[in-house]
C-alpha cells in the first residue's frame, strides 16, 4: 500500500505552480481555467471566484480564518528524537528535513494553536502540506498528543485539519505507530467530554486518513478535497478498471456516508462554531447577515457549481435514503450528480491538457 502515492506528485506540482506567480499577477484556476488575480483570490480565501474551486490555503491563512479576529497562540511543537532510523534513500532523510525546514520556515508538517471560535475555546492542529507532503512522523504524532493535552487542560474543543499524503516512510514503523498514538490523543479529548472535529482538506490519504482523521465526532470536508485510503493509481493497478470521475472526492465521501458535510471555505467558521456551541451547550453564536461571511466580497459572484445550494441539504438528503432498499438508487443518484458536475465543470483538465493549454495561451 503506497501511502505517498504517485497521485501526490502532480499535486505537489500544482501547489508549487501558483507560487511562481508574482503577488500582483494572476494564475489559472485548476477547476475552470479562469483567470484569478492573486489579490482577489486571497480576499476570497483562495477559493476561485468563478467556479468555487477550493485552492490550497496556507496554515497561517487557515488559522487566521478560523480563530476569532484572526488571533491565536501558537503552541511549540514538542521535540522528538531526530531521524532515529538514520534513513537514507537517494538522499538522507536528515537533509530532506533540513531543506523542508529552510523552505517552509516550519519545524515539521503540523502547526498547533489555541484561541477561540465564536468565543468557544478551541485547539487547532493543522497540517502543512508543503512540508514533506504533510506526512505524519513522530513530530506530527507528538504534536497531536500535545494539542489534545492542551484541549483537555483548557476545556477546549479539538479540531484537526489534515492535509497529508499519509505516514512518513522515512521513519519506518515509528511513523506507523503514530496511527494509534494520534487516536489515543483523540481518546483523551473524548474521555474529557470535549468535542473533536475533523476538517478534512485536500488531500487526506493513507495512514492519516486511516487514523485520527476518521474518528471525529464531526467530519467536515472542504469541497473537492481528495480523501481516501489507497492512492488512485494503486487502485487502478489493482482492480484494472477506470475509476469514477469524482472518486475519493469530498462529495463522493458525503454520498457514501463517511463525512457529515461538505462545507465551503467561506462558511466553515460559522458552521464549526455553530456545531461546537451546540455540542458544548454554549450560547447560540451571533448570526451574521445572510450570505454573510464578511470576508469574501466576491463569494456570491459567479456561482459555485460544486456546492451551490448543496452543502447543508445534502446530508439531510442522504439521511432520508432508505439504505437497505435504495443503495442502487443512491448510487444512481451519485452517478447523476457526478455527471452533472462533470458537465458543469468546464471539462476539468487533466494535468497534461492543462499544461498544453497553458503553453498555448
Amino acid at each position, binding site marked *: 500500500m503506497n501511502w505517498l502515492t504517485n497521485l501526490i506528485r502532480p499535486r505537489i506540482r500544482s501547489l508549487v505552480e501558483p507560487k511562481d506567480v508574482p503577488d500582483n499577477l494572476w494564475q489559472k484556476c485548476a477547476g475552470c481555467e479562469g483567470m484569478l488575480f492573486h489579490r482577489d483570490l486571497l480576499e476570497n480565501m483562495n477559493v476561485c471566484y468563478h467556479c468555487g474551486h477550493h485552492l490550497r490555503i496556507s496554515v497561517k491563512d487557515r488559522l487566521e480564518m478560523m480563530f476569532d479576529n484572526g488571533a491565536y497562540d501558537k503552541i511549540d511543537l514538542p521535540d522528538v528524537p531526530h531521524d*532515529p532510523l538514520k*534513513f537514507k534513500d537517494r538522499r538522507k532523510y536528515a537533509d530532506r528535513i533540513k531543506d523542508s525546514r529552510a523552505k517552509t520556515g516550519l519545524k515539521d508538517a503540523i502547526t498547533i494553536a489555541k484561541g477561540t471560535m465564536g468565543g468557544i475555546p478551541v485547539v487547532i492542529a493543522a497540517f502543512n502540506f508543503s512540508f514533506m507532503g504533510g506526512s505524519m512522523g513522530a513530530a506530527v504524532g507528538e504534536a497531536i498528543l500535545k494539542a489534545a493535552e492542551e484541549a483537555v487542560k483548557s476545556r477546549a474543543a479539538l479540531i484537526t485539519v489534515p492535509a497529508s499524503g499519509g505516514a512518513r516512510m522515512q521513519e*519506518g514503523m515509528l511513523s*506507523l505507530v503514530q496511527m494509534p498514538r494520534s487516536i*489515543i490523543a483523540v481518546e483523551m479529548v473524548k474521555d474529557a467530554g470535549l468535542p473533536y472535529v475533523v476538517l478534512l482538506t485536500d488531500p487526506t490519504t493513507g*495512514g492519516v*486518513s486511516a487514523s485520527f482523521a476518521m474518528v471525529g465526532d464531526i467530519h467536515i470536508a472542504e469541497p473537492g478535497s481528495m480523501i481516501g*485510503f489507497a492512492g488512485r493509481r494503486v*487502485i487502478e493497478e*489493482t482492480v484494472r478498471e477506470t475509476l469514477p470521475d469524482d472518486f475519493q472526492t469530498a462529495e463522493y465521501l458525503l454520498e457514501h456516508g463517511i463525512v457529515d458535510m461538505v462545507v465551503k471555505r467561506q462558511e466553515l467558521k460559522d458552521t464549526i462554531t455553530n456545531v461546537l456551541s451546540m455540542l458544548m451547550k454554549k450560547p447560540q453564536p451571533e448570526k451574521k447577515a445572510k450570505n454573510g461571511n464578511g470576508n469574501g466580497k466576491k463569494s456570491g459572484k459567479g456561482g459555485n457549481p460544486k456546492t451551490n445550494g448543496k452543502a447543508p441539504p445534502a446530508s439531510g438528503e442522504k439521511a432520508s435514503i432508505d439504505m437497505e432498499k435504495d443503495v442502487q438508487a443512491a448510487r444512481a443518484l451519485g452517478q447523476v450528480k457526478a455527471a452533472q458536475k462533470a458537465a458543469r465543470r468546464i471539462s476539468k483538465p487533466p494535468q497534461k491538457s492543462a499544461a498544453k493549454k497553458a503553453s498555448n495561451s
Partner: protein
Amino acid sequence: MSLEFEKPILELEGKIAELRHVTSDNRVNIASEITRMQAKADKLLVQTYGKLTPAQKVQVARHQERPHFLDYINYIIEDFTPLAGDRNFAEDHALIGGLGRFKGEPCVIIGHEKGHDTESRVYHNFGMARPEGYRKSQRLMKMAQQFQLPVITLVDTAGAYPGVGAEERGQSEAIAKSIETCLRTEVPIISVIIGEGGSGGAIAIAVADRIYMLEHSIYSVISPEGCASILWRNGAHAEEAATALKLTAQDLHRLGIIDDIIDEPIGGAHRRKEETMENVSRQIEKALNELIPWDRSSLIQNRRSKFIAQGRNL
C-alpha cells in the same frame, strides 16, 4: 516455492534424498556420506539463517509454506468456532475471527489468512482485508469485552485491500475505528506478527498489550517495493528499502515497537511448522498468564501509555 538464497541448501538436501534411495552393497559408506552431507547442510542452514539480510527476511516472511492463520487455529486452538460477517455488508474471508479455546480457556481469536494455494488465496483475497474485515474485528473485540474473554490476533497481511468498493465503504474509517476499538477493549489483547505486517491493514488489529514478532517476520509502514518505487523512483531498489525501513523483528525490538521476538526453528518457520506454532503458543500462554489478573482500567491505561512512550526515548 524455493528462495534464491536457499538454493545451495536445497541442492544438498536433494542429494541427500537421492542417496537415501540408492540401493547399494556399500551401505556403510553411503550412510556415512549421508551423515557428512547432512552435517554440511545443517551447518549451511545455520549460517544462512544466522545472517539473513532484511530483504531475505522479507522473502522468508512471505514464504508460502509458512504456517498461516488457519494452521495456528488447527494446531493451538480447540473448538474453533468461526464467526462471520460485520452484521452490515459482508463477510470478509481475508480476516477471520471467532471463538475458541486456547489451553482450555475460551478466547476470541482474529487474524489474516493468506491462503495456501491458488484457489484458497483467491478465496481469502491474499490476506488483504476490506472494511468489512476490520468491522468484523471490531464486533468481535466488543464481544470479547462483553464476555471478558482475552483476544489473540495473528497478523499476516501485505496490507488492506486497495479497491473501489473498499474505498466506497470507508476503508480508512474501518481501520481507524479498529485501532480505536483495540485501544478501548478492556480485556488482554496479544498480537503476534506471524509473517508479514503490512502497514495500516496490520496495525488495525495489532494495538495490543503485548506485541510479538516471529524471528523472521517483518512489520513495516510500507512494502519495500512500494517504498523503493516512491523514494528511489525505482522498484528495483527494494533491497535497499528493506534495509532502510528497519522492518525486521530484531530492529523493531531494539526500537521498542515490539515486546519480544519468538524464535523460529533453524531454517525458518516453513521448515518446521509445528515447532514454530509451539513457540508462538508458549509465548501467548506466558503473556496471558501475566495479563489476566490485571484489572480492566489498568489494562487500558497501560496499553495507552505503552504506545504514548513509543519512539520517545531513542
